[in-house]
């Protein structure tokens, strides 16, 4: 196995990043992510009470985006449907790091080879199973809820995150500063968290951003396939799936949530990219001597 789930090589340098920060890239990214994010976070506040059910897949009649497959107002479902996607994705990313961070740090800092092998080798094996297949396998047996879906998505992200953390931390742990700390008799905690963890923070922030894109993808796709959601849940991905049958009669019930998902995922990716490019520019003048020039894998003026 060579590459982690979201496209960054194990060194943590993101190849899917254009190095040059252009003014306005933040603006474009914010513009794209703005509508879906605001809808996802604030939508439930404005959703109001559910009205009486109308006929399935109709247009007009007080529903300006029409009705869905069971006759509910599509606009209300749209207002409610973003939060589960966003919250599940954020929870899954946080959970993945909660497990991967200690795993990676311990195996990078331990001097016992057997412990490192014990912690990291099983992850290599899990990494071989396609992530969606693993999720479907467990879902077939346990029928998880939204929390279960977050756990599952976190689980498939752990191996990869742990490998990146280990690689980054191992590099930081081999620096003379750590040797000095050790000789001064500093505690393990101080070295692991205070120095190694902090040195690795930059790579981790990069990885977290890229990982969030992948997690959003998995959460939405799993929900589309019916994993971790009720069949009539207010969830953009579920809406796309369930309203497909009426695509020819009432396309809005499908197109609106699909566009919002596209906006959300594209926006997150562009935002991460813009943030990385900006930081790269800020970091570049004071580059540490150990870092390779052209770390982003692309030339820049």
């Amino acid at each position, binding site marked *: *196995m*060579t*590459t*982690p*789930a979201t*496209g960054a*090589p*194990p060194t943590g340098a993101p*190849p*899917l990043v*254009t190095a040059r920060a252009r003014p306005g890239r933040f603006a474009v990214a914010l513009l794209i992510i703005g509508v879906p994010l605001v809808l996802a976070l604030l939508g439930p506040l404005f959703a109001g009470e559910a009205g009486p059910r109308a006929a399935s897949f109709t247009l007009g009649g007080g529903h300006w985006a029409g009705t869905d497959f069971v006759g509910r107002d599509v606009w209300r479902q749209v207002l409610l449907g973003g939060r589960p996607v966003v919250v599940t994705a954020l929870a899954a990313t946080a959970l993945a790091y909660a497990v991967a961070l200690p795993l990676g740090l311990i195996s990078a800092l331990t001097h016992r080879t057997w412990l490192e092998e014990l912690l990291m080798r099983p992850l*290599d*094996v*899990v990494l*071989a*199973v*396609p*992530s*969606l*297949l693993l999720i*479907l*396998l*467990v*879902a*077939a*047996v*346990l029928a998880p809820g939204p929390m279960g879906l977050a756990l599952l998505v976190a689980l498939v992200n752990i191996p990869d995150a742990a490998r990146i953390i280990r690689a980054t931390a191992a590099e930081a742990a081999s620096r003379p500063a750590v040797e000095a700390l050790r000789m001064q008799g500093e505690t393990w905690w101080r070295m692991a968290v205070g120095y190694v963890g902090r040195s690795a923070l930059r790579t981790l922030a990069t990885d977290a951003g890229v990982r969030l*894109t992948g997690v*959003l*993808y998995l959460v*939405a*796709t799993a929900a*589309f*396939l*019916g994993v971790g959601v009720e069949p009539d849940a207010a969830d953009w*991905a579920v809406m*796309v*799936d369930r309203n*497909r049958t009426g*695509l*020819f009669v009432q*396309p809005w019930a*499908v*197109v609106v949530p*699909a*566009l919002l*998902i*596209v906006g959300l*995922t*594209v926006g*997150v*990716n*562009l935002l991460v*990219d813009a943030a990385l490019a900006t930081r790269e520019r800020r970091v570049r003048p004071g580059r540490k001597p150990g870092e390779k020039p*052209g770390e*982003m*894998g*692309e*030339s820049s003026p």
Partner: protein
Amino acid sequence: MTGLRQWLLRRLLLGTGQLVAVVLLVFALTEALPGDAAVALAGDQPDPERIAALRTAMHLDRPAYERLADWAAGLLHGDFGTSLVSGRPVSSYLADGFGPTVLLAALTVVLLVPVAGGLGVLAARHEGRFTDRLISSVTLAVYAVPEFALGILLVTVFALRLGWLPPTAVGYGADLPAHPAVLVLPVLVLLSRPVCSLARLVRAGMIDALAAPYAAQARRYGIPGARIRYAHALPNALAPAAQQLARTVDWLLCGVIVVEALFVIPGLGTVLMNAVAERDVPVIQGLAIVFGLTAVVLNLGADVVAHRFAPRALVAA
């Protein structure tokens, strides 16, 4: 040479470990069922007769290791067991779904490399100019989009508004090669993510390679630009992309499941989703074994290719 052989040996060992792990993982599935597996599977119709039938069908009265040994021995002979729902052998399910899935995957892989390579080289040639900015932005944006959302929007535009292509494969049965129009949208959707990631890697590698001293030296010798680009720079630019191939395999296997569900193509992904809906554990296990083994074998192949392209790069094994 010994280094290469040692690496290959270690990589094969890891691959074998992964194969065993997939089999164990998939078997653990039935053990993970809460409570008595037969009761859990009977689900909505928990009448004692069905539970008893399930218990016999799954040999739940015997210890787990015996069942594992039997099942694994069956796998070696190509015997995947029988479906709990229909009583048909699982291998017949696999045979039914095999054709469409392989067709989709093969078409995608055949188109993937030239399209991604072409886009990457094109962007690198026009570095910093409009073409490059366009390709870079679009690949960055599309890379993150889930297949189902992209697919449904393409269906809305090309099938619903313009009427150029059929929206799904409903009504065409398994005879897809005779109706190439049905395959256009599915293959396009399957290609979207891998093409974007590979094109960006090829672009980055190509720009690096063209800026390298050996390319400048070749230019000083008066070697034509096209030859420098394709004969000298491109193979070096492909090295990072080849490493990404392994991840692409994962995406393709996941993408196939989504695309088949979206376009109602009767392939292995559809069989898997139906089995998941019916909790038909033997069928799920059989499909998981097929998907898992394909992933392990293709990953192994991709690593070998990557190692061939970039022997200096660290390929973990």
